[in-house]
């Protein structure tokens, strides 16, 4: 059973990596932010599966915090940062 | 004796500044009597602690009743106590100076008046916590309190250059803390203890963790103590800040990082201090001595000159590492500690007096300073006394400190380091002499509208400078503690 949970977690982690590619490629700020939110949701699922594998109850709390705080980043983004970066993936500044 | 016990005094010294700062912040007001009473009480507690240490020697005070290695200890050492006393003197002087410098102002600068005292007390509390700490991680947190308060104090002067300097200082300080924490992690991974004495008991110079940890701790502290070549942040931060802030930063905050170097290299890391390490640290010191001294000579602005002088003086202090051997360890540690104390008192006096002179002259350029006249005369007197202490004219504290180190160098036959020390002293003489010569022999005309120089702006600098001169007599006494820092 543990192996099953772990395999599930691994699969979801692979999904996180796919979302990561979207974060990196954009092209718009909203794309990045949304795929970031997706990563957060997937992480909640990963944590719950890890709870299944290990039985550490605190993982549920971690997942709870992730789920609750996911709103915060997106709301901050919408209220404070957007649509400053809504346009193309232009370099905001040279590195 | 009617003095409170050492443990009580330590509790007062570490909690009172934090509590007062918090209360000042919460009330949003700056009642002058409360501030001065707290500062005075702290100074008395530090002096009483000094008396206790003279009688009892090194003492250990577990916090929460937990013994090492699980719990945290406070450790009262002669070296740390000298720093506590000096901190209290400079802290008190700065608090008095601050009431004269900031509180009369209204308008946009009222902001500075509002936040200066809480930040000052936070820094004071961080320093006190650091000087009694005997635990690697506790030292990290105390360092962070000190650094954050110092950065905020530099940023108090909202001018652009000051803000930039504060940013640079913050980054350098955080970089230093991070590397220091890496060292803590490595040593914990090797030995599983954080207490300095417990670490000294198990330390094996051959272990990879102890070597790597020692390097990391040292690099982190060198960045915080602004030792060449990691000094780049210091001149701006100290030169651009408000005068009382510069006094605390140059006199105490940098000294605290350097004190920690002493505490570690002559405490738990003592087994690693061989010829090569000493020579390397000494070379860095010689570089700082030369670089800071030459740049101090070239400065046109008074406070920048004093700031570069700090770089140079801490280069001098680095020479304790190559001079130390098993035989003269305690004398060298004593010399290093007294050097820090002398520098703290003299440099704080110099910065406070510089602030007064700059205000009286309405200019920061050395060429435009008011001459030896009127009330500015008292500020100049403080500059002269502080210069004498920095150069090391007998019988100042600077002389006693340098004398101890010179003796060690002669006994070891370390002629190179002896030469560096003499050269550094000459360089100090040169740049301070240039300041005195410009102002005393070639005075600028009187200001048309002389600003009000209150006692609060004149007295603290003068008293600190006087103390730096007079304490040298105490330091030549035979009653000096034999062991300044507990060794392995």
């Amino acid at each position: 059973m543990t192996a099953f949970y772990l395999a599930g977690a691994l699969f979801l982690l692979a999904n996180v990596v796919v979302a990561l590619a979207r974060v990196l490629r954009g092209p718009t700020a909203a794309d990045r932010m949304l795929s970031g939110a997706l990563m957060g949701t997937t992480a909640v699922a990963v944590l719950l599966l890890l709870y299944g594998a290990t039985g550490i109850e605190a993982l549920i709390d971690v997942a709870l915090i992730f789920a609750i705080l996911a709103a915060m980043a997106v709301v901050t983004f919408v209220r404070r940062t957007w649509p400053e970066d809504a346009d193309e993936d232009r370099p905001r500044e040279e590195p | 004796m009617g003095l409170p016990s050492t443990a009580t005094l330590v509790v007062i010294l570490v909690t009172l500044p934090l509590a007062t700062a918090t209360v000042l912040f919460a009330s949003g007001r700056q009642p002058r009597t409360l501030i001065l009473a707290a500062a005075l009480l702290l100074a008395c507690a530090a002096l009483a602690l000094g008396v206790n240490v003279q009688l009892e020697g090194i003492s250990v005070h577990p916090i929460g009743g937990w013994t090492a290695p699980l719990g945290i200890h406070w450790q009262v050492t002669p070296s740390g106590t000298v720093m506590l006393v000096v901190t209290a003197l400079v802290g008190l002087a700065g608090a008095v100076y601050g009431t004269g410098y900031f509180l009369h102002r209204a308008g946009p600068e009222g902001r500075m008046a509002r936040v200066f005292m809480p930040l000052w007390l936070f820094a004071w509390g961080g320093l006190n916590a650091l000087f009694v700490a005997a635990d690697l991680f506790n030292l990290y947190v105390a360092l962070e309190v000190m650094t954050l308060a110092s950065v905020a104090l530099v940023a108090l002067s909202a001018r652009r250059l000051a803000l930039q300097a504060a940013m640079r200082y913050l980054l350098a300080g955080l970089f230093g803390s991070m590397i220091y924490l890496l060292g803590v992690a490595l040593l914990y991974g090797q030995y599983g203890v954080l207490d300095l004495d417990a670490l000294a008991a198990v330390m094996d110079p051959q272990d990879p963790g102890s070597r790597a940890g020692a390097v990391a701790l040292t690099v982190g502290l060198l960045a915080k103590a602004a030792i060449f070549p990691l000094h780049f942040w210091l001149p701006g931060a100290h030169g651009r800040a408000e005068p009382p802030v510069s006094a605390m930063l140059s006199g105490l905050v940098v000294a605290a990082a350097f004190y920690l170097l002493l505490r570690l290299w002559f405490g738990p890391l003592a087994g690693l201090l061989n010829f090569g390490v000493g020579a390397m640290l000494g070379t860095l010191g010689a570089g700082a001595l030369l670089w800071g001294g030459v740049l101090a000579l070239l400065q046109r602005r008074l406070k920048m000159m004093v700031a570069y002088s700090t770089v140079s003086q801490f280069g001098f202090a680095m020479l304790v590492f190559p001079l130390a051997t098993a035989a003269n360890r305690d004398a060298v540690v004593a010399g290093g500690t007294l050097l820090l104390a002398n520098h703290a008192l003299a440099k704080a006096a110099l910065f406070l007096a510089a602030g007064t002179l700059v205000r009286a002259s309405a200019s920061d350029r050395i060429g435009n300073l008011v001459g030896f006249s009127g009330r500015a005369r008292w500020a100049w007197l403080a500059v002269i006394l502080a210069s004498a202490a920095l150069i090391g004219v007998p019988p100042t504290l600077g002389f006693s400190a340098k004398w101890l180190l010179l003796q060690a160098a002669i006994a070891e036959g370390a002629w190179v380091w002896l030469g560096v020390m003499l050269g550094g002293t000459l360089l100090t003489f040169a740049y301070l002499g240039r300041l005195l010569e410009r102002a005393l022999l070639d005075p600028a005309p009187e200001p048309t509208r002389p600003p009000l120089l209150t006692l609060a702006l004149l007295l603290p600098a003068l008293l600190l400078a006087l103390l730096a001169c007079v304490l040298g007599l105490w330091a030549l006494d035979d009653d000096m503690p034999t062991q300044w820092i507990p060794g392995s």
Partner: protein
Amino acid sequence: MHPVEMLFDALLLLSMVVLAWQGVHARNLFRAVVSFMMFGLLTAVAWVRLEAPDIALAEAALGAGLTGALLLATLGRLDQGGRATRLRTTFMRFSLPWMALGLAGTTLLLAVTLALPAPGLDEAVLRAMPAAGVDSPVTAVLLNFRAWDTLLEIAVMLLAVVALWSLGQDVLASTPRLPAPALPALVRLLFPLFLLSTFYLLWRGGHGPGGAFPAGALLAAGLVLALLAGARVPERMTGAPLRCALAAGLLAFLMVAVGVMADRGVFFAYPPQHAPILIAMVEIAAGLSIGVMLTALFLGGEPTDVEGGPS
């Protein structure tokens, strides 16, 4: 170790390293910030893998949650193309030598750390647990064995608020970029949930992972969301009451630390029979105060006026 676990760890850590690199060097600043936020998220998962649920909780709440919001808000406050945010660096232009140095350092660090025996203090903690007054070992270390560290850490936090206020800037630019009509309703729905989870975590802290810091972070998140949704701080709350709430955690901690000296004359030595209740008191005061402090850190200035968007 199970091979699937190995694979999981490898993938997790690889993603973390890639995100860390992007978080520092991404071409676009916004991309860097989002990468850094995701880095924090995966770090929390890494803490879980290291059997450190307490840190995972704190990282999820502080590292990933509030830091991300703080960075995004800062990004919104910076003008574009402003050159003022850069430091002049003269001798650090060349990336390659530094990179070589970094790789050498990595190898050295790895070689050293692999050889460390890591004895640890777990046995000492276990022996002292019966007298600690709490069941969770991490809470016992934080609030009893090494409580002095924690007190200084709360001082650092309050100091950060004082420092930010001393910079004398306004509360963050209060004109929201876009209208968000559904937001107030959402926040009204979520806010009780935040409060509930705050107290849940405070209660958990006594016997499991949880405690003042994650709880405070959740409270702060709730308050920040409410402010972002346009809630106003009542004017009578901005002066002394706010300052007192900020200072309350540190003051309570100091009072307990000094107050218990009445028992045995030792700083921070809780009397054994009262230790649980005293620790719980400290934890609750600290948790609530931390919530307010974190909110103040997010706002970034002294709220002299009202805050929030159009209500």
